[in-house]
């Protein structure tokens, strides 16, 4: 059969042959053919090895085991081990008279026994471990024990039992740790054996016992350490023994196992460690290191020295051995040396630092396993003092490394740079280098973090954007392009005007159109993905306001994408186009520079320590009804809504708040606020929630239009908006809203002051005072009279006040008394607000306000969040 299978040229042929064979075997099983049973099973095993299902043969195994003859049993057990595994219950006879059969049974037990079997058979195995010990005889004078005893005496060959039994015990205690104590005594007696096979298994059993049971560890430590040291000494000094000799060393396996058990015993125990010092020194110095076997012993010995209690001299010896290993030409030896040094670094970092140069060489090795080890080691080696040269080395190597290694390498470099960077400029420099070399391998959160850092380093904005501009000329790596586009959008003016030059920079001249060129290239490049293109669009919009001279050109670029097949880009293109052409007055505010991103929150969020990000979830819930999922925008939204956590009066420019305010106002009469989840949260959360919807728009306007389109989708009765909404492009509602937002229905109010007035807002230009009153019989409602006073020496025109409140509040704004505010406090504007608090008595009022006006024909924006309302409103 094997020959037939081997003759098959294709997988299909092979399958056919196997199927035919299986059919034959099944037929033969059905006929209950005694003679061919073991042959069938052998065939089945082969088929099994080829990866075909053979479950129908399992019963055959058991039948074979149950039969009397040795050949049948032998193949039966083999089949048992191969075809079955732990999950099946099997019964095995350990009480047989033939030692080989018991050996087979034990072997099978050792290889496949499950926890239940282990529990059941443990006493039997234990007895077999003990059969030579006359003391236990008294305790365990059970029939089976005697049976074994007499049988063993008769055969005179007890060794063959003990070995498998000991290893079976290992498996048993691994499966059922609470049986461990039963094995301690017999295991200890095994350590006194002379026969190497028994000794090896005994030592292994002891090592595993120590791992599962502290009691056993204590016992062996007290009773056996000296004996083991003596055994090791004997083995080390033993004369040539041909039976066990490997490359001139007597039984390296025994050496290694002895050393391992000594390691377990010596760990955390000074006396035991002391006891083994001499022999360890002897092993470390005497063992030949020109063959693999010798090196294996040295390796184990070093590991033992490193883990037992402190001994300076031995440690030096061990580190020297590792140094020798590291300079070895054999890759295997180098690999284990690196492995070992990683453990040694916790013990003696200084000594490992000495080998830094060699380790760095290993990072550049051609072997992936060695590279990986070395890189991990380098990562551990780095500290504040050596981070600069080491990072330089790694980045230099990044240029020439294999493609598949670059991913690992960049990840490590990035975390090194982030962890140890001594100053921001260095961090930015290194990150730019990494991005230039291997930007495609950089993870999203890494470049997000970089943007956060850049935005925080206000004195480096100019430097960074210029460096990015230069890097962009030479590299096309995706994440580099993204960061560059973002920075050019934000700080394009700094790029052109060479603001904030550092001494180390070469001066460069970039014209406005050069900067626009960069972004245009990105948009038109085929390799740029959606995120990059979307980012480029936003950058263009921002540049259109920063560089008025290029505005027309930018408009043309944007218009080209009006018919783009990607919905996201098309939408963006139309929206931005309308902003550029129709809404000059708000554009500058809309594309104002981003507020400084809060580093701590970003890190916190990345670590998942922030409570569930309310804002993000809201944004997505808005996106879904619209049918436009924008995973590409998510990172930006994420970055953006960090600013919510920054102190309130940051000036977040943009029509977002406009729209949000409008929504807040206009939607409030609606019974059900579309797109917002009615989540019962505390005031600030809800406020954040609301704000975060408004915040993304300064960057993209996308969420706003989504809110609007979700309004469309839901067809909710939003009275003031209804007439304005038309089911055309999403951009239309935005425009309409913007055009018509000044129209508000008038509602007269009465005032009766029962609460103290507060100064709601005060800046160098303007003061806002709130007077409160409550209408009779309606404690939930508060009437607020807002009084605005101009503190500056110029008069304000086009004065507009807006306010937004969280969901548990409803706000109604009356028209203001005027839209011109004379200079120097020579007059005031008053405006009435009506706030209904649905959580009256539980939560107090909160409000976010925005004041826009023109001073000397320049747009000015003031913003603030009000938390200081009197209680009980």
């Amino acid at each position, binding site marked *: 059969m*094997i020959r037939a299978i*081997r003759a098959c040229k294709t997988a299909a042929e092979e399958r056919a042959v196997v199927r035919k064979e299986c059919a034959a075997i099944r037929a033969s099983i059905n006929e209950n053919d005694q003679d061919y049973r073991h042959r069938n099973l*052998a065939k089945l*095993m*082969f088929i099994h*090895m*080829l*990866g075909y*299902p053979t479950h129908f043969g399992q019963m055959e195994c058991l039948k074979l085991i149950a039969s009397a*003859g*040795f*050949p049948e049993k*032998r193949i039966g057990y*083999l089949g048992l081990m*191969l075809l079955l*595994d*732990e*999950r099946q219950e099997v019964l095995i006879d350990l009480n047989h008279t033939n030692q*080989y059969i018991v*050996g087979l049974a*034990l072997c099978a037990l*050792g*290889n496949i026994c499950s926890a239940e079997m282990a529990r059941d058979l443990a006493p039997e195995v234990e007895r077999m471990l003990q059969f030579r010990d006359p003391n236990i005889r008294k305790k365990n004078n059970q029939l089976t024990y005697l049976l074994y005893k007499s049988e063993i005496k008769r055969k005179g060959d007890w060794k063959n039992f003990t*070995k*498998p039994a*000991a*290893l*079976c015990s*290992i498996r048993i205690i691994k499966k059922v740790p609470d049986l461990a104590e039963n094995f301690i005594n017999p295991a200890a007696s095994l350590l006194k054996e002379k026969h*190497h*096979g028994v000794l*090896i*298994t005994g030592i*292994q059993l002891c090592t595993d016992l120590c791992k599962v049971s502290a009691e056993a560890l204590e016992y062996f430590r007290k009773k056996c350490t000296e004996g083991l040291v003596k055994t090791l000494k004997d083995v080390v000094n033993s004369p040539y023994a041909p*039976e*066990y000799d*490997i490359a001139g060393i007597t*039984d*390296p*396996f*025994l050496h*290694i196992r002895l050393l*391992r058990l000594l390691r377990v015993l010596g760990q955390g125990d000074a006396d035991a460690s002391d006891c083994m010092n001499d022999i360890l020194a002897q092993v470390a110095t005497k063992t030949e290191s020109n063959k*693999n*076997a010798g090196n*294996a012993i040295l*390796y*184990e010995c070093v*590991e033992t020295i490193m883990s037992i209690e402190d001994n300076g001299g031995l440690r030096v010896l061990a580190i020297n051995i590792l140094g020798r290993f590291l300079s070895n030409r*054999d*890759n*295997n030896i*180098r*690999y*284990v040396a690196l*492995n070992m040094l990683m453990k040694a670094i916790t013990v003696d970092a200084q000594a490992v630092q000495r080998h830094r140069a060699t380790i760095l060489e290993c990072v550049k090795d*051609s*072997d992936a*396993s060695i590279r*990986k080890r070395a890189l991990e080691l380098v990562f551990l080696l780095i500290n504040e003092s050596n981070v600069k040269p080491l990072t330089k080395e790694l980045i230099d190597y990044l240029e020439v490394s294999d493609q598949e290694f670059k991913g690992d390498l960049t990840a490590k470099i990035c975390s090194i740079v982030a962890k140890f960077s001594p100053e921001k400029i260095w961090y930015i420099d290194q990150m730019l280098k990494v991005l230039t070399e291997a930007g495609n391998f950089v993870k999203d959160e890494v470049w997000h973090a970089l943007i956060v850092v850049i935005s925080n380093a206000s004195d480096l904005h100019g430097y960074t954007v210029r460096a990015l501009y230069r890097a962009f000329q030479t590299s096309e790596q995706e994440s580099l392009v993204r960061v560059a586009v973002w920075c050019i959008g934000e700080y394009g003016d700094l790029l052109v005007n060479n603001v904030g030059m550092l001494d180390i920079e070469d001066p460069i001249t970039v014209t406005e159109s050069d900067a626009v060129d960069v972004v245009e290239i990105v948009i038109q490049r085929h390799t740029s993905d959606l995120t990059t293109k979307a980012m480029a669009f936003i950058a263009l919009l921002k540049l259109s306001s920063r560089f008025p001279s290029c505005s027309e050109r930018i408009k043309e670029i944007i218009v080209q994408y009006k018919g783009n097949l990607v919905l996201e880009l098309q939408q963006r293109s139309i929206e931005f186009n309308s902003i550029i052409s129709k809404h000059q007055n708000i554009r500058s505010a809309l594309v104002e520079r981003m507020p400084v991103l809060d580093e701590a929150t970003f890190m916190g969020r990345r670590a998942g320590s922030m409570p569930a990000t309310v804002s993000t979830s809201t944004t997505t819930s808005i996106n879904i009804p619209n049918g436009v999922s924008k995973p590409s925008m998510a990172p930006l939204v994420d970055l953006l809504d960090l600013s919510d956590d920054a102190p309130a009066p940051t000036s977040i420019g943009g029509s977002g708040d406009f729209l949000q305010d409008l929504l807040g106002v206009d939607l409030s009469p609606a019974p059900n606020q579309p797109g917002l989840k009615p989540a019962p949260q505390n005031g600030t959360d809800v406020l954040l929630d609301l704000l975060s919807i408004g915040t993304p728009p300064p960057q993209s306007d996308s969420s706003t239009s989504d809110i609007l389109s979700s309004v469309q989708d839901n067809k909710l009765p939003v009275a003031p908006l209804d007439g304005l909404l038309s089911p055309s492009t999403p951009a239309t509602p935005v425009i309409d809203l913007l055009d018509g937002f000044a129209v508000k229905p008038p509602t007269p109010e009465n005032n009766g002051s029962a609460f103290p007035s507060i100064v709601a807002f005060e800046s160098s230009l303007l003061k806002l005072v709130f007077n409160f009153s409550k209408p009779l019989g309606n404690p939930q409602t508060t009437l607020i009279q807002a009084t605005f006073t101009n503190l500056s020496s110029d008069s304000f025109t086009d004065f507009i006040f807006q306010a937004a409140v969280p969901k548990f509040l409803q706000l109604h704004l009356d028209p203001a008394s005027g839209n011109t505010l004379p200079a120097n406090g020579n007059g005031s504007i008053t405006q009435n607000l009506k706030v209904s608090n649905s959580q009256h008595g539980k939560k107090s009022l909160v409000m976010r306000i925005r004041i826009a006006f023109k001073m000397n024909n320049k747009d000015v924006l003031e913003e603030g969040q009000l938390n200081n309302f009197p209680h009980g409103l």
Partner: protein
Amino acid sequence: MIHFVLLISRQGKVRLTKWYSPYSQKERNKVIRELSGVILTRGPKLCNFVEWRGYKVVYKRYASLYFCMCIDQDDNELEVLEIIHHYVEILDRYFGSVCELDLIFNFHKAYYILDELLIAGELQESSKKTVARLIAAQDALVETAKEQASSISNIIAQATK
């Protein structure tokens, strides 16, 4: 501890598998596929260790066969190399200059020898002679059993004539 032993030919055919940790049939096939992909593509001068799913796989090539053993992270890799060599030497002695074909047609014998060498993923015998002796003794038992069977059937055959 050794989690499994694999013998894979140069062409990626499996010649012997022994699992000391529980893996379902599906997982086994997956493991074999993954590992043969990794190991067979490695160059000759590279080190004999591959890190894989938190374990280490130690492999060594003898002629056209790769002997692979999967061990824990903190086991001694050099020793496992030595165990592989030990196994190969015993096979060599048993078959008399072993080749891949020996292992294909006598795969059960390769299993017997492996069972004498390793149990439950641990080494049980460091002496080649002992292993050889045990295997020989068991083979002899099988032979005598067969002879008995055939002599009985001969007797029966003669009696029925």
